[in-house]
């Protein structure tokens, strides 16, 4: 007597017992003799090392200074960068900026050559300002109904808080934005870095006003980077980070000058300056799916097989407890690993991480293509 077989449609099966469902899909090759069966793949039809294509669209908003819309499969993130001014009087414990790194400016704007020489010291110094004065403010909003578990009216979930913090620390550690772009000097033209088109106008004004007052930083731009998840289907960090990078690359700040009469910073409506974004760090996330179900796995040695699922979707994320995120930047020809983060589990070892770097590198190329 054969056991009665129940035929369930795939989506229902996936809901009822997701773990066996994914496992059976991944182990489908074991029964490859049957040609009717599809080859081993994830439930979403992708191979284990296959990512969803990333689409990035810049400048979709008009009220923000920079914006982007990134789609990663069914995950859609909207990012808006909004700049506001922070006068130095408002900064507790403000240290006047040490001009050592900017020494070459005194001799009439050293230009690119001078910039290069001062790069090291200035970047280091700048990092301190960025962090000490909190000039970058990323926040992630998941509670937009982007997925059934993210409903509004509650404080940010642990996931939203974690994501915001991760973006925040990565923004600082990668040095994506330099503080020299965010400083507003009391004399026009002196804060523009290597931006040559501004120099002419700036210097002309400088001559008019004379040089009796010392050039100083009067304000900083604060970048409010707000991310809104329109739709959520796994892998939020990769999508969010791509959106942040795309939006920052799209950001241009109005040219600001100090108005000594009104004692305030005034911005030009017509002139804008592109924000310099250093490099193109790309995040690449994979989740580790274990043969044994989450509940059964002890804290000790991992038993059974495991799969590395690149770019996990919502279903897969709920079934995996171990994940790795690597941020790489190959924009200067060499692959530089900007950060490696791994949460939970014990599966990923040295070999896997090494192998993952190659995967991340491949991902970088894909994303770079999409960002163009």
């Amino acid at each position: 007597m054969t056991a009665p077989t129940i035929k369930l449609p795939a989506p229902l099966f996936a809901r009822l017992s997701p773990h066996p469902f994914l496992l059976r899909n991944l182990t489908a090759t074991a029964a490859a003799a049957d040609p009717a069966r599809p080859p081993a793949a994830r439930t979403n039809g992708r191979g284990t090392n296959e990512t969803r294509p990333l689409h990035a669209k810049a400048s979709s908003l008009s009220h923000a200074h920079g914006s982007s819309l990134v789609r990663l499969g069914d995950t859609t993130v909207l990012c808006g960068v909004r700049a506001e001014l922070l006068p130095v009087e408002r900064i507790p414990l403000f240290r006047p900026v040490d001009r050592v790194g900017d020494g070459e400016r005194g001799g009439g704007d050293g230009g690119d050559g001078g910039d290069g020489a001062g790069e090291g010291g200035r970047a280091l110094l700048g990092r301190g300002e960025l962090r000490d004065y909190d000039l970058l403010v990323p926040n992630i909003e998941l509670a937009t109904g982007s997925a059934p578990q993210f409903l509004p009216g509650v404080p940010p979930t642990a996931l939203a808080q974690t994501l915001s913090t991760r973006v925040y620390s990565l923004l600082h550690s990668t040095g994506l934005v330099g503080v020299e772009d965010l400083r507003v000097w009391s004399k026009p033209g002196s804060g523009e870095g290597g931006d040559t088109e501004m120099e002419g106008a700036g210097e002309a004004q400088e001559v008019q006003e004379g040089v009796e007052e010392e050039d100083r930083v009067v304000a900083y731009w604060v970048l409010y980077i707000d991310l809104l998840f329109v739709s959520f289907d796994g892998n939020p960090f990769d999508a969010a980070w791509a959106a942040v990078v795309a939006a920052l690359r799209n950001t241009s700040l109005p040219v600001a000058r100090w108005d000594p009469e009104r004692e305030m910073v005034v911005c030009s409506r017509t002139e804008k300056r592109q924000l310099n974004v250093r490099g193109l760090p790309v995040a690449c996330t994979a989740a580790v799916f274990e043969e044994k179900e989450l509940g059964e796995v002890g804290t000790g040695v991992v038993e059974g097989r495991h799969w590395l699922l690149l770019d996990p979707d919502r279903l897969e994320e709920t079934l995996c407890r171990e994940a790795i995120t690597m941020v790489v930047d190959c924009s200067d020809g060499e692959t530089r690993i900007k950060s490696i983060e791994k949460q939970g589990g014990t599966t990923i070892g040295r070999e896997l991480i090494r192998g993952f770097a190659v995967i991340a590198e491949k991902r970088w190329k894909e994303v770079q293509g999409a960002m163009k």
Partner: protein
Amino acid sequence: MADRRRINGPAGATIPPVFDDASTRGPKSIKSRSRPANATRKMYLKTGVTPSASGSAYLEIETSATPGVSGLKLSCSVHGPRSLPRSAPFSPHIVLSTHVKYAPFATKQRRGYLRDPSERDLGIHLEAALRGAIIADRWPKSGVDIIISIVEGDQDRETSQLQGDEVWDMMNALGGCITVAAAALADAGIDCVDTVAGGVAALVQDAGEDSIPTVVVDPIPSEHEKILAACCIAYLPTRDEVTNLWFRGDLPASDIDLYTNLVEKGIQASKNANRVLVGCLAETIQ
């Protein structure tokens, strides 16, 4: 007290950039209306933008001909019908909860993360508009969440100062919210008596203080010198019924025709929006 669950930025308050307007334009320059008085702007509506939700829709209203004026962009997701939590009291009808929130970068002023009173107010208007349309008794003991993110508000970026336009902007936003929510509800398969759509009409005075006011549909505050009154209407075309009416302004009570005319134009605008809505839904079915 600072919200510890978010990244708050610098301790000192920041100020939005102040533009030096002298070079570009006068303090108040009015662009004239680029459309006939009874023409609405083009809108683009699409359902199914949030696959993880039961239903969703995205609405974009065309930016007007003048550059720099952004159109309204709304994203709506519907979750449900789903069972109410055990703690909730029995309800013979579906429990509707609406949530309208501006994105922090949606308007000239950066918005906070918590809903302000005007956003709550919009939520209530939306609830009233939708409750009339939904056949609520088909889902006892269940609830549905309707969440709208206003990705971009309907404001002129160039006008540096507000001219008390915010209230009129709110009305435009509400009109869009109603239409997009109706599309998302249909996408979620929730039964409605009819497709409800929002429309806005305003009584404007374009040529100085003494001119005779005219009624226009789908007003953009920056295109008019003065808006005397406006109304936003949620209208069910096949039943010829109004589920929500919001009027605001200053009209002489002795002249009821002026008011009636305004409401009629609001209904006309709503009918226009409804055509787009029905077209979009028909497209989805195919």
